[in-house]
Each structure stands twice: as structure tokens, then as C-alpha cells.
């Protein structure tokens, strides 16, 4: 269904309102699904852009070992736009895994460039003000919220999910 609604090439932002909701897991699953559907797919991780405390723990190093993933830390919005444009030229789907929207403005910035935003929500999590803030901020920047994917607690466990991710070209190959 999502595949049919997206243009080619498409840029999708996978983010969340809170930590541990599992955007990387969701992105990996989507990438696998797109790859199995014959789409050239790449994942870029924007978690390190924020730096400091909210950086990398949500995206482990295994993501970088997968051929289709890019562990990317843009130095600015223009550079990020260039990288995304370059990836669009070589891939049908660019999945940008972004940190929680309320915590990192990079998520909103990439959302403005993307064709749509998918939010991961961990089932059973408490409803917080971050959820409402996320929706509000996405609407404010004009991002398109395509929908929400409910993540079970086990599914939000990044390490297990990344281990099942398979086959993708290395970073250099993807960029080239």
C-alpha cells in the first residue's frame, strides 16, 4: 500500500516521538520489504547528527555493516540535501532514520525534504506530551505524516531486528 503511494525515487523519514519506539527497526523492515519488492533501497541514519547524549545508542554499528545502510552524520542542511539528492539518483527509496522529533531539529529538517514521514510508536508506552508535540511540529514544518506503525516491545528491540536485516550494497557502492 505504501509502495503504491510513493513516487520514485522517494524519500521517507522514519522517526518517532520518544526514544526506544524503534524507528531503526521499522526502517530495516521497510528496507527489507522494499528490497524484496525490487526497489533499490538505502537507509541513512541521522542519529549522530545530534551528537551528545541523544546520539548513537538507538542505532548500533550493525546498521553500518549492512550494505544498504549509511551511517551518516551531515554537517549541515545543505550537505544533507545534497546527500539525499545523490542517493535519490541512485536508489528508488531513501529511508532516513531520524531521532525523535521533539529532541532533534534534524528530524524536522529532513522531514521537510522528504515525501512523507512514518512514525514508530511502541505499544504499551505511556502517552506523553511529546506525542502531541511531534504531530504539531510536523504539521508546522509542512511535513506529510503518512501514518504510524505500532511496534511491539520486542519489535522495538533494535539489536535483534538488525540482526535479521540482510543483503544490501556497501556504503560506497550505494553512494556511487
Amino acid at each position: 500500500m505504501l509502495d503504491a503511494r510513493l513516487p520514485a525515487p522517494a524519500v521517507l523519514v522514519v522517526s518517532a516521538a520518544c526514544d526506544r519506539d524503534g524507528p531503526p527497526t521499522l526502517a530495516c523492515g521497510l528496507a527489507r520489504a522494499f528490497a524484496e519488492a525490487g526497489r533499490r533501497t538505502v537507509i541513512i541514519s541521522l542519529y549522530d547528527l545530534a551528537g551528545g547524549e541523544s546520539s548513537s545508542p538507538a542505532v548500533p554499528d550493525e546498521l553500518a555493516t549492512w550494505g544498504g545502510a549509511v551511517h551518516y552524520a551531515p554537517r549541515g542542511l545543505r550537505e544533507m540535501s545534497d546527500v539525499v539528492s545523490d542517493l535519490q539518483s541512485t536508489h528508488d527509496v531513501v529511508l532516513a532514520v531520524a531521532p525523535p522529533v521533539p529532541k532533534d531539529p534534524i528530524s524536522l529538517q529532513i522531514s521537510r525534504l522528504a515525501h512523507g514521514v512514518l512514525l514508530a510508536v511502541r505499544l504499551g508506552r505511556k502517552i506523553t506530551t511529546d506525542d502531541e508535540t511531534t504531530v504539531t511540529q510536523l504539521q508546522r514544518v509542512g511535513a506529510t505524516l503518512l501514518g504510524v506503525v505500532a511496534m511491539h516491545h520486542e519489535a522495538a528491540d533494535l539489536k535483534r531486528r538488525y540482526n535479521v536485516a540482510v543483503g544490501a550494497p556497501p556504503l560506497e557502492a550505494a553512494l556511487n
Partner: protein
Amino acid sequence: MNAKSVYEAVAHQRWAVGIVLGIGIAVAFMLAVRTAPAYTASSSVLMVPATSNDNSGNPVSTTRPLLSDDLPLLVQTTAVLQRVSQDLGGSLQPDALYHRIRTQVYQNSNVMTIRFFGITPKQAVSGANAVADEVVGQYRTIATSRYDTLAADIKRQLERRQGDLRQLDADLQRATVTYPYAQDAYGSAEGVSVSTRLGQLQGEHDELVAKLSGDTAQASVTSNRKSEALPLARAQAANGDPVYRNLRERYGRDAADLRRDQTEFSSNYPGLAELQDIVGRERAGLEADERNVAGRSFTATQPYADALAEENRALSLVANDRAKLARLDQTIALAKEQLSGSSSARTMISALRRERQSAEAAYQLLSTRLITTLADRAAAASTGSVMVFDHATYAAPSPYTRPVLVTTAVMIVAAWMAITLAIVLEGLARRFRTAVIIERVYGAPVLGVVR
């Protein structure tokens, strides 16, 4: 709510669960430290049911026999616990003992098992035996207490009655001293009334008057007899006097000569006047001697002395009778006077005696009641009693002592409270439980669920 949801609730509220469990552990630890009995000793008490076919003739107690179901309640009474505390030397207070004693009465059984928890085997054994002994003692106290109360009350009444009787006796004693004849009328040993006594006195008076008459007549006879004996006595006295006898012989001869001369001769016969003068002098001398003899005592003569003695005895009897009669007259007069003046005293004494009889009857009745009460008490103490069936001789380590049970119970309760708290808090928390809630919050459709 299934196990999974409960698990999730506990997982979500793990901090609250942890706090509750921590508090439970702390409470269990404190309780375990406070009470640490580790040994258990058991004794048994047997309830002997009262038999209804008692043919011994002894008084049967009307006290309801203690039931086996009542024994555990008896163990937990303050009186028993205090006595047990005293028996144990005061090392354990009654409130602490309450938690160390367990009782059990098996169904359809009259045996109650007493278990005592102690921190040492000796304490456990002593405690179990003390509880059994004190239960028996308390039962007997209860069974006989009302009889003790009744007996004490009866004894007090008896003492009061004794005081009343003593007071009445004292009053009677004073009345009898004040009114001796009235006392005789109603209560003396002889049982003679004043009127009866007066009649007796009158009879004695009559007898004494008759006797006096007889004695007076006898005295008169003896007096006549003495008078009759007087001439003879005088004659004997005169005859016994030689001067008188000589003078009387000479007077006889001269008188005979004078009568012969007067017959034969005229008055002018010489010597006749002289003879008459001699005879006259001799007669005067004889009369003087006779007076002289009569003036002497005749008691020397036997007849007169006998008559005189007999007269004296008769006169003394008469005098004695008269004296008795005089005293008897006085007694009769006094009795008549008291008979007329002692009616009020008799009434008072009669009232006192009736009152004393009533008091004595009441005393006897109370005595009978006291005997019956004591018999009832003895019967109540002996029938349907409780006895120690088996004393404790050893103590065994108790695997399920109170600390273990308390700790277990507290932890179970704490776990239950923690789970309940987790479920409640989870129910109150706003969470993403369903896709509907997600869509309502985000305003976007739920595209899928990743499991």
C-alpha cells in the same frame, strides 16, 4: 485480564512493585526479629463429661458442664495467661503469651492439644505444662466460683445471725436477772411458774399450819404431863430432903397428939395451948420447907426432867413451825406481789424468747443451706471436670514457626498488594494500548503492527 497483561502491568510499574515488595520485606524482617520462637512442646487436656446417672446420693451440681469447644476460649482468657506468666517467672508477658499458644480440639473428641512456642526447649515444655495446669485450675475456679460466692454470703449471714443470737441471749440474761420469777415462769430448769410456785407455797403453808397445830397440841400434852409430874417431883424432892422429912414426921406426930388432946381434953387443958403453938410453928416451918423445896429445881428428878425435856422439844417444834410459817407467809406474800407485777416482764421475755427461737430457726436454715452449697461446690469441682491428659516432656524444633509463617504471609500479602497496585496504576495510566488510541493521538492512520 490474562497473565500477560498482568506481567506487562508489573513490568511497567516495576518501581512501584519494587517499593511495595521492599516494604514487605522490611516488615517481615522486623516481625521475624521480634518473635523468634523456635521450639514447640505439646500437652493435652482431657474434658471429662459429667455423668447423669449419679446414684451416689450426693448433691448434683446444676452448673452447666464446660464443653470441649469452650476450652480454647478458656486458654485465651487473661486470667489463664497471667497465671501462666507467673508460672514462667514473669519472663513472658500475657500479651506475648497469647501469640505463643496454639490450641486444637479434634472433632468428636474431648481432648484439646496445647502447643507452646518457646525460644528454648525448656521454655516450650514449661509453657505447655503451665498452660495445661492453669486451664484446669481456671476451670475449677469457674465451676466453683459461684458456690464460693454463695457460701461466703451465707457465712456472712450466719455471722450476723450469731451476733443477733448473742444479743438476744444477753437481753434474756439481763431480763432473767431483773425478773427472776418471770424467768422461772418461762425458762427455768424446774419449769415452775409463779402461780404454780404460789400454789406449792400455799400447800406448804397449809401443811405447816397443820403441823403447827399438831406440834402445839403435842406441846400442850407434854406441858400437862409436866404439870402432872410436878407434885410427884416435889414429893420426890421433899422426900429426898431429910430436914423436911424429919420436920414433917415431927409435925405429924405433934398434930396427932394435938388432935388427941383436943378430943380428950378441954381447951383448958394445961399444955394444950402450948402444943397448939408448937404444932402451929411446925406447920409454918413445914410450909416454909415446902416452899423451900418447891423453890429448888425439880430437874434433878427423872420424871420431871423427862417431861420437861419432852415439853421443850414440843415447844421448840412449835417455835420452829411458827418460824417456818412466818417465812412462808413472807414468801407467799412476795410471790403474790411478783405475780401481780411481772406480767409485763413475762411479755417482754416471751417476746425475746420467740425472737430468739426465730433467729435460731433462721440460723439452722442458713446452716443447712451452707452445707448444701458446699456439697454442690464439691460436686461441681469433681464432676464434669477438666484434667491434664498428657504433660509435655520434650520440645521439638518447629519448622513452621511464627517468624517463617509471618514472613511468608507478609511477603504473600506484599506481592499481592504490589501486583494489585501495579494493575491499578496500569489501569490509571494513559498508554498506547490499541491502534485506535494511536490514531486518536496522532491523527494519522496506523499502517501496521510490527511484532
